[in-house]
């Protein structure tokens, strides 16, 4: 894998993110509180939710199928749930966790989410960026020439099967 390059620009962005950090933390907190309280969250093993262990996701039977299909898919050996589904950078990760934690708890408690479960556009983008981050070596040139520059295209459009096998 390609080690993350630390360019000047990147440093700048980190700095900028530093400024937003408090806001992000607020959102994060609000996410947990709104997520029907920490009781619900902990009962549903929200604690293990922050873990890198795929079994943490399995605490919800609703994730069972995704776990099973992940085990059979090509990336079983290369990537765990959060490698694909949570942002790799520090701030984004916790922001996303808070927001997703909210939806997860709400969904699990109220059972009001639409099925089949479908990835939300924002999370689809996180996913895409995670593909890029592991495969930057291979696809770097494409990105340089403007490929994937907007959300009309993503790795998953062609490689949807890497995480959970082919849907069709």
């Amino acid at each position, binding site marked *: 894998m390609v080690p993350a390059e630390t360019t000047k620009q990147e440093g700048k962005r980190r700095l900028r993110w530093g400024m937003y950090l408090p806001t992000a933390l607020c959102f994060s907190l609000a996410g947990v509180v709104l997520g029907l309280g920490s009781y619900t969250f902990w009962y549903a093993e929200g604690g293990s939710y922050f873990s890198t262990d795929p079994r943490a996701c399995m605490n919800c039977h609703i994730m069972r199928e995704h776990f099973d299909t992940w085990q059979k898919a090509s990336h079983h050996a290369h990537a765990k749930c959060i490698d694909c589904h949570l942002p*790799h950078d520090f701030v984004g990760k916790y922001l996303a966790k808070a927001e997703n934690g909210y939806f997860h708890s709400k969904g699990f408690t109220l059972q009001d989410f639409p099925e089949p479960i479908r990835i939300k556009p924002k999370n689809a983008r996180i996913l895409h960026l995670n593909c890029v981050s592991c495969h930057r070596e291979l696809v770097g040139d494409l990105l340089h020439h403007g490929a994937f520059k907007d959300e009309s295209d993503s790795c998953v459009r062609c490689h949807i099967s890497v995480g959970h096998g082919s849907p069709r």
Partner: protein
Amino acid sequence: NIYQRKEEGKQHFFKLVELDEDTIDPALWGKNFPRQYDGYKKTTELYQPKVGGSEVIDRLEADPNLKKLFAGYAFSIDFRKARGHAYMLEDQENTERVKQKKQPGACLHCHASVMPTYRQQGDGDEMKGFLKVCGMDWQEAHTLVNHPISCIDCHEPKTAGLRVSRPAFKKSIVQLAEAKEAVPFLPSIEKWRQGDRSKPYDVNALATRQEMRTFVCAQCHVEYYFAPKTKELIYPWAKGLNVDRIEEYYDEIKFTDWTHSESGANLLKAQHPEFEMWSQGIHARSGVSCADCHMPYQREGAVKISDHHVRSPLRNLSRACQTCHRSDEVEIQERVRIIQDRTKSLLKKGETAVVDLIASIQRTKKRNGAEERIKKAQEFQRKAQFRIDYIISENSLGFHAPQESARILGDAIDYARQGQMILRKEDEEEAED
């Protein structure tokens, strides 16, 4: 965007040559992008089954109906199967359609790397130059160009990002944006339509990247006509991309390509409406672009590139189809075959019906007094002919939109047969004319 950082990839290419808008020579581009250049050069490969010892598939020979259908028009003299991009200029130079008939400079728009010429002829204004070259004689215009399609035709020289260059496309897509017919397969146009429309749709600024992967091809793989006097090249999209809308458009401007030498009908010629047909299919609705299938990604050493050997996906099924379709190659091939066979079977019936109609008109013409009915029959011929030609000249034999292709042919059959009927009378009927 908070995660934008990740968008920056690692760079593998080296800028050895400075490229600009006048750099037509692909070998120069190839210095910077050798892998893409290698693919591009392979478009010289000839892979069609050789017919009669020649390297060219003569479509007039392969389907004897065609001479009859195109009687009186240049396409009845010479009409071949497309070859690779490398041949585009040479094949235009060599066709009897150019050798035996007068053609306008407009022809070169899609067969040569023509943008520098347009700018030059227009004193820096490419639209002006475009119009000027369109109106020239082909022979005169031909001396101004010297290269088939090159990198510059699809790529911006500074970043090598995609862009469209062709004036006829830029103008016509504006017309399409302003049309009423829904275009869900072109989201940036739908979005523009929602806006205030204060400025015309600007394709290079607004199109999504995935759309660009189709638009660069749609610069040329489209139905077209020449404006009667100026010979300006125009794509007939002002009412939409469906064949029925295109026909309406032509009828409204009373356009005619030629008069059939046997029936006397005023007919339309359809040319390679791949973009229009694609737009009616399920792949377009699913956001699958031309490049996805005709220039699939390919691994070259440590990097992935777009295969610049543009060709039939059937010669590259695993890369072109199998990332999206998990079936084996034989099965995928079989699916294409079935679609194409159904199209062929209806096409044959359609051609037969139009050939029958031509013969009926010809016979009826021998007597007096049937003028009104002959006129109606000719109108039916125009409708039927345009539709079967739409499928004949669309080069995927129905694949780009299987059900729509069959619908078009069903309509064609109905029109042709109705034309014949007008020329016949039931035994009991009185002669009306």
